[in-house]
């Protein structure tokens, strides 16, 4: 091959890669524009704040308040994060700092398998195990009656689903903290835990924030497994033992069965838009926190 054809090939290949990259980013905008466009009809009838804070969801009467679903989404995600974050951080510390290579060789593939389990299987596990647990033990413990299909059930199932994602990222993050830095702390007479607390976690803090942010996006969007155990009741939940219906469940449960109610379709896309915006807000917030942390650490 002549130099000219080789260089031309190189040039064209680069162009192709650029195109694909652009396309990937473009999809984001296409989806966003599509969702905005489709939810426009309902936004013409009332302000977005009306839909965000109204609790009335009666599609037959063309009332589309999203408040119950937003509250459910936040509950389920918050429960999942509260359960998963400390669990994952401690498990990752154990794997990266204490466990010997043999144990790591056993555990990390298992965690990867957990990541590959289809959502629907988590849902079934939730119905078979978590629902009865909540109904027979957790609810009575708090002196309440529950069918077991509740926000906390969704939160528990979701937290287990987040674990592999978060542990994998955290392990990567902890691996970036150099051995020399930890040895510097140890050589001053610090115990292992003092070193972990003051050096490892501090150095890894921005990475931990990223790990939480990524898991959070995953948690907000997870649909099927949560939908199977959360009860799907359209009501503003007052405790985590109440059933609820998060936004993704609302959309998945109803899209395609909108009968011939005019604005139903638009209302569900508004729900998508709200979900989109919630994820966006948390993403931006985590980026701001990250930037601040990196500035402080120098």
């Amino acid at each position, binding site marked *: 091959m002549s130099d000219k054809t080789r260089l031309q090939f190189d040039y064209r290949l680069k162009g192709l890669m650029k195109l694909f990259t652009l396309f990937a980013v473009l999809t984001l905008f296409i989806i966003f524009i599509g969702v905005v466009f489709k939810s426009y009809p309902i936004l013409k009838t009332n302000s977005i704040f009306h839909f965000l804070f109204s609790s009335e969801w009666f599609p037959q009467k063309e009332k589309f308040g999203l408040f119950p679903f937003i509250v459910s989404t936040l509950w389920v995600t918050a429960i999942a994060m509260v359960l998963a974050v400390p669990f994952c951080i401690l498990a990752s510390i154990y794997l990266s700092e204490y466990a*010997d*290579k043999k144990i790591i060789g056993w555990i990390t593939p298992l965690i990867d398998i957990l990541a590959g389990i289809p959502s629907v299987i988590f849902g079934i596990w939730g119905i078979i195990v978590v629902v009865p647990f909540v109904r027979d033990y957790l609810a009575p413990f708090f002196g309440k009656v529950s069918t077991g299909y509740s926000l906390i059930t969704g939160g528990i199932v979701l937290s287990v689903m987040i674990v592999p994602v978060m542990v994998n990222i955290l392990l990567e993050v902890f691996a970036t903290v150099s051995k*020399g830095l930890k040895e*510097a*702390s*140890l*050589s*001053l*007479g610090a*115990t292992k835990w003092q070193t972990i607390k003051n050096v490892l976690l501090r150095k890894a803090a921005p990475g931990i924030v990223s790990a939480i942010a990524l898991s959070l996006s995953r948690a907000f969007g997870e649909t099927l497994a949560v939908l199977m155990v959360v009860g799907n009741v359209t009501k503003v939940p007052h405790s985590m033992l109440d059933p609820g219906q998060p936004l993704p469940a609302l959309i998945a449960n109803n899209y395609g069965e909108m009968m011939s109610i005019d604005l139903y379709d638009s209302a569900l896309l508004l729900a998508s838009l709200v979900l989109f915006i919630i994820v966006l807000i948390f993403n931006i917030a985590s980026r701001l926190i990250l930037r601040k942390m990196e500035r402080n650490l120098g």
Partner: protein
Amino acid sequence: MSQIENNKGSIQVQNLNVYYGERHALKNLNIEIPKHKLTAIIGPSGCGKTTFLKCFNRLIETNENVNITGQFLVDGQNIFDPKVEITSIRKKMGLLSQRPYPLPMSIYDNITYGPRIHGERNKTKMAETVEYYLKQASLWEEVKDRLHSPASALSIGQQQRLCLARGLAVAPEFILGDEPTSALDPISSKHIEQKFIELKNQYTIVVVTHSLRQARRIADYIVFMYLGEIIEHGPAKELLSNPQHQLTKDYVTGEMS
């Protein structure tokens, strides 16, 4: 002051063997490190210098699959005795590593880190500590106006002096250097070498070095290692000018590197 009366600052190594799994990394080392002198450990790459140094503060145990036999007496006490608290051994040994590792916190907090983990809470005392040891490491003038900015913002030479000050702040008896100037520019290296020469009146210093010239400049005593064994050791001048062993001779004349 008789030697027996004051055991502080003494190190005796007796029949020390280190195995990494199957590999016999250190072979039957026997040596006494002279007190309040600067001892340089020299030898070609892979001869076990760093492994040996890591025994001094038991950092070697952070590796997996390490097996250690023999006695390593610091102030008359075998540091590998299971009854010994590892933190108390490490507190006695200030370490300066190959490249500086400032902790992810401010300059001020880097110095107070050691005292704090050992339970010091008195704020005025800590402020004095910071000033005193930064002066000892000749860094005070350069950083006194920005004590609370991140340590990572310092130049690499300043960082190494900060690490020295941080190590001194826990009041060790020994200073260990693992090629402490290998990542530094010539001027920063000179700073550190000068510091070592000043500090040897108060501390027993052990430095692993790759540079024969550095050993010539700063060492009082030299240990030559080869393939995990101590081949020869003695006062620096004698060993360098009149090595007894053929391997030492080859190394100091540059026949082997």
